[in-house]
């Protein structure tokens, strides 16, 4: 096996990773959890990250790459500071999700599937996020905004812009309160 890559992970991430091993009958089961943890820490899954995870789980890097390339939530590239995901599936589309996405694209000067030139925003269409009665739904990082009607987006756009102007969130974020987008996300 190739020499193990080193990764600059936070101590909290490393501790969390170690705590997972006793929970499964087989190390390979940690592939998805480790990909999540490393991506949350470093922003995306680089070649080095994939090699590091593989070594940690005594797998071949291709086995981790297979997983990373299959699941839509994993990224091989860095993205903008704020990740905006618009649900485009039927229930949300019926109440205007496509128009909502267009409006967001204009307001943030960013095409869906891309990152804005200033590096602040990445907009993506995603499939159903399971709150279909409250659509259109927009998930901004780990916050879920409901009823994002194309005609009433000012509040959401402000929230997205504020998120981009703030520094990176601290690792130990405060407990989200019920009824807030952070709780529902």
């Amino acid at each position: 096996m190739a020499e193990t890559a080193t990764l600059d992970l936070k101590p909290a991430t490393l501790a969390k990773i170690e705590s997972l091993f006793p929970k499964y009958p087989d190390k390979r089961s940690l592939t998805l959890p480790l990909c999540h943890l490393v991506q949350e820490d470093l922003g995306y899954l680089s070649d080095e990250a994939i090699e590091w995870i593989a070594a940690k789980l005594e797998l071949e890097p291709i086995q981790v790459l297979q997983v990373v390339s299959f699941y839509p939530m994993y990224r091989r590239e860095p993205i903008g500071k704020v990740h905006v995901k618009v649900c485009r599936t039927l229930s949300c589309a019926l109440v205007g999700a496509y128009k909502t996405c267009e409006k967001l694209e204009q307001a943030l000067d960013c095409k869906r599937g891309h990152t804005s030139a200033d590096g602040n925003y990445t907009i993506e269409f995603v499939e159903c996020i399971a709150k279909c009665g409250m659509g259109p739904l927009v998930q901004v990082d780990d916050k879920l905004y409901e009823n994002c009607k194309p005609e009433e987006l000012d509040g959401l756009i402000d929230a997205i812009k504020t998120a981009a102007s703030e520094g990176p969130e601290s690792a130990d974020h405060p407990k989200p309160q019920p009824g807030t987008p952070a709780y529902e996300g």
Partner: protein
Amino acid sequence: MAVEQRRVIYKHVDEEGYTPDIDCYMKHGGYEVLKKAIGAKPEDLCKEVLDSGVTGRGGAGFPTGMKWRFLDRKSGKPIYLICNADESEPGTFKDRQIIYQDPHQLIEGMMISAFAIQAKQAWIYIRGEFINGARILENAIEEARAKNFLGDNVLGSGFSCDIVVHRGAGAYICGEETGLIESLEGKRGYPRIKPPYFPAALGAYMCPTIVNNVETMAQVKHVIGMGGSEFAKFGVKGDPGTHIFGVSGHVQKPGYYEFEAGKITVGEMLYDVCGGPLPGRTFKALIPGGSSTKILRFGERFTGKHPNTGEDFDWGVEDIPLDAVSLKCCGTFLGTGGLIVMDDSTDMMEAIANLMAFYGHESCGQCTPCREGSLWLNKMTLRMTGGAARNQDVDLMKNIADQIEGRTICAHGEAVAWPVQSHYNKFKDEWLDKIAHQGNGNGRYNPKGYPLI
């Protein structure tokens, strides 16, 4: 209002002052059923579940007690329990409220189930997008462990079982139980071929495994709480208990509601509960149980003999009682109880194009008919809605769908085929009418509704 909700699973959902912590849950009588169950014989609990007739709430509606009976107990291998919290079928948003607002109800249901089937370990496979939901469950598990409701030697019974929360990463197919198991094992979510890989015999880590939906696990708590025969008295024959219905799309008051099976009709649900259509609109179509179930068209009629009552029925869409048996009589399914409502502003060709974009994106790619078929249908409907539809495309779509159904490893194949077949059967006229309006390359035509693709 004619029919009152009967909130069992959702008793405390959206209740003022109700919080997801264990103290609140126990103040409302939580974990009493587990305490009772842990003193009973596991086989007696399985019998109660069988007698109750409770069916799975993940979409297929298979009787839970029967599924548990299929467990291979002779192999000597450990038994595993997995709660399917993937909630990925479009139009479905019922498990979310249990997870976010009443997580201990799920954990209590899971521990009762784990004890009943004598599981050695349990997992909750939760969709990756429920980021805070996973935190809430992990927190609830630690609270329950501190009170010895899970973990080692549960309540001094000698039975040990832990629950681990496992996050998915955005793939719909991981809701399919064998795809889920592959994903849990750290692989791509490729569904397994059945036979031989029935989870009850060869599931997680090739050990006997039960996979049940979140709502099913919560129902089990109430089955044991009231007893199987008592539970069976609610709802209808073949579909006992309550259902959570999630209504989305074109109604005044979309939302989630819990009713006894068969006690409310589609019309009562849409008009009395959900406030009717939007101003100036009329209902056109209903997908009754999540996006893969067959669509119904307002105005069509269903006739036949009802298997439960033996009586003849002659129903419009509004008259159909919301239970699994009655919907089957009308050629569709109750599925996950996710009702997607479309009014007269909806362009039906754009609607099917929206669904094909979903199923094309989510096919795992293992079987040729599903992989190629769903992508063709996706590409075709994109072209057709984009303004370049041809009359012959309409029959071609049906033809492709017919060749997928029944020829794939998992039911994703049907999930692609059924919408196309049923939309074709019921809305072919609208597709052709739209094609006529498009003319030859006159461009996109959808004068009334929101774009759906």
